[in-house]
């Protein structure tokens, strides 16, 4: 069975699974970046690490990148030149308010399906696709239920396990004991082991009441409409992913703003930690607006993923929360 390695939340795991492949949504290892041999200066460390992960693929594995930012789009091109395994670049439209945008996303899903079929997979029947979607929807509901009672780092790690297509270890996880200054972490994706940042925040006297990173609940697709799922599974998939996931690359970005306003209010967050990689323009631009929109203090936490980054991050979190507490 082909394993499809990817990182974008806009690539539906159930679509890959229904085509007979194993979806594996990665949090790339920052240590893989060097393997990419891509330039360091000016390049997003996350995109560089994902390109490095693609370099390490072997027979039976393929990489799927998404066009959700320029850096990732170009990292896909770099990986396509160098990686030993096939690389597929999924065109996620930036616009979303037109039928043409949704049609392009749908066409890209179908193109991905053909790509997987060429690698030995098969196009699913409508019923098979609906079955697979239903199964993922059930598992995702269990995941959502569990997230509400888990401590922030455990919640993030459980999502990562789900994304890797593993059975999340929902038993024995640490239960959330809310204390500390309530903060929201909003921004780009996490790399391997980055969930430790939630512990660093607690150590600094805060508590994460909202994980709005690309690796958190913000990018979970909407629950499926079970009736429509049986009649028009592909369109339901398009709506749940393309129609519902808010992100900084979308134009206009009103869905992200609405999501942020709603979730900040319901979570009780009193400050925002904006998690972004150096050279990430989309989230850097959003940092200034987030504070204006919410009227909350914002820590623009630019992370590099390199050696020493953890200590810098911890120091900045400590200083930020010291001022707020």
């Amino acid at each position, binding site marked *: 069975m082909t394993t499809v390695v990817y990182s974008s939340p806009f690539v539906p795991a159930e679509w890959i699974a229904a085509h007979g492949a194993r979806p594996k949504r990665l949090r790339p290892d920052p240590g893989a970046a060097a393997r990419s041999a*891509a*330039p360091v*200066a*000016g*390049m997003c460390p996350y995109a560089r690490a994902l390109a490095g992960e693609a370099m390490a693929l072997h027979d039976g594995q393929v990489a799927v990148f998404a*066009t959700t*930012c*320029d*850096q990732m*789009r*170009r*990292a896909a*091109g*770099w990986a*396509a*030149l160098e990686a030993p395994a096939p690389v597929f*670049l999924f*065109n996620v*439209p*930036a*616009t979303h308010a*037109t039928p*043409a*945008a949704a*049609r*392009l996303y749908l*066409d890209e899903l179908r*193109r991905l399906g*053909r790509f997987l079929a060429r690698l030995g997979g098969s196009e699913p029947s409508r019923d098979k696709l609906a079955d697979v979607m239903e199964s993922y929807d059930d598992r995702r509901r269990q995941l959502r239920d569990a997230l509400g009672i888990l401590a922030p780092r455990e919640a993030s790690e459980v999502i990562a396990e789900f994304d890797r297509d593993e059975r999340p270890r929902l038993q024995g996880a640490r239960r959330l004991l809310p204390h500390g200054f309530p903060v929201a972490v909003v921004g780009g994706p996490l790399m391997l082991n980055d969930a430790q940042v939630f512990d660093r925040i607690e150590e600094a006297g805060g508590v994460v009441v909202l994980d709005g990173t690309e690796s958190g609940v913000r990018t979970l697709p909407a629950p499926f409409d079970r009736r429509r799922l049986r009649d028009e599974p592909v369109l339901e998939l398009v709506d749940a992913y393309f129609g519902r996931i808010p992100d900084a*690359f979308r*134009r*206009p*970005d009103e869905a992200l703003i609405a999501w942020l306003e709603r979730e900040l209010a319901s979570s009780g967050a009193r400050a925002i930690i904006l998690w972004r990689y*150096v*050279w*990430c*323009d*989309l989230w*850097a*631009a*959003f*940092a*200034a*607006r987030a504070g204006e929109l919410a009227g909350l203090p914002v820590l623009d936490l630019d992370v590099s993923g390199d050696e020493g980054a953890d200590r810098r991050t911890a120091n900045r979190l400590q200083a930020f929360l010291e001022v707020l507490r």
Partner: protein
Amino acid sequence: MEELDLLCERRRSAGAPMAAYVGPLRRHVAEGDRRLLRLQYDASPAALRLWSFLLTEEERLHEARAAGAKIVGAMKDLGTVPVMAYALPNVVAFYPDGAWWTPCVMELSDGLLRIAQSLGFGESFCPVRAMLGAFVDRAHFPIPDLLTCSVGAVCDDFSAIAQRVESLGHPILWWEMPHRRPPEPDETAVELPGGFSAPASQVALVRSELERVRSALEALAGSPLGDAELADGVAQANCVRRLLAELRRLAYTADPCPMPALEMLIAEMLAIHFCSDRAESIRVLADLLEEVRRRVKENRGVLAQDAARVFWVNPVADLRVMNLLEDCGGRLAGTEFLFSHALDLIPEDLPPMEALARMALADPMAGPSADRAARIERDARAFGAEAVLVSRIPGASHCALEGAVIARAVRRTLAVPVVEIEVPPVADSMMPTLRAQLEALVETVMERRKP
């Protein structure tokens, strides 16, 4: 500059015919364009006209607004929407993106980058963030009646900055530019201007997006934009492109070099939106071409014979660096300033919206870096370039990897030296480093010529 201003005065005294906007460059220095004092110019009436045309664009836009014309701010697509807008009567289009040169021309006295910084757009962003400052201080271009912006396969800097512009109360018509990819075996392929190909489905998507732009333009102008008007707009755009093609052919191949690099950069820029006056841009380019033809015929040039032939990739934020190349013994032998799709002829044997969609999709920024590298290799070979210079734009999301892809491809296939430089809006403090890099490139070329 003094020489050019003297020329202007002499021609005026002699009663030589000059367009109304032509005048001494010192008037622009008085208005704050201090970089003009540090540039070296071609001392011809054609160059005087070119510079005067460029430097009076904001006045032209304000006059158009005062005269009741509708103003379209086209953003990012670099060459497509203006072709459509100028097909309508009483509509003028320009690129607010062009404000990226304002900090250079005004040597940072404009304060645009400071305003951008105050809005969260610091040095990690491309200098095009100056556009944001211009929307805020309203001291440069008039605020357009309609703003369009292509998004999708574009640089993140621009997408983020444009979103900030919209958040400040300037609604934008966003239109999708898909990432251009090669057609798959089961897809119908379409040949694009410039030699790339794309699936027919992508062309159809861009066409449908441009139809939305067409509707917005019609609503703005209050008159229909039919295929006949568009076809005429395409023909006029091609008139500009043909002039530029011949100008580039002569300027980049004739020896001695008949036109300096700086004037060629400005001339090429006219292709994207005609500097807000399509008819006049044709006359300006025709003048320049006539001057170049005369020089070639008389075997006259502006540089020493046998200068090192350098293909230049990306526009520079500091115009002075174009002079520096020539100071170091180099000359232009081809360019790719990120808008080769605005230089290639638009097909006139197709329905105009189909032709425009194909042209838009040929944007070098929309496709893989490897495509762009292939085009650069081809053009560099055609112009006989002996070296390739990749000028990185500080902070630009595409430059880090793209430069590496281009450099590697060029080294492999053309086997010519490649250098990457980075040019900020005012590069004075970096001039010694840049000079050393350019001199080393020229020396390498000269060394390779030795038998």
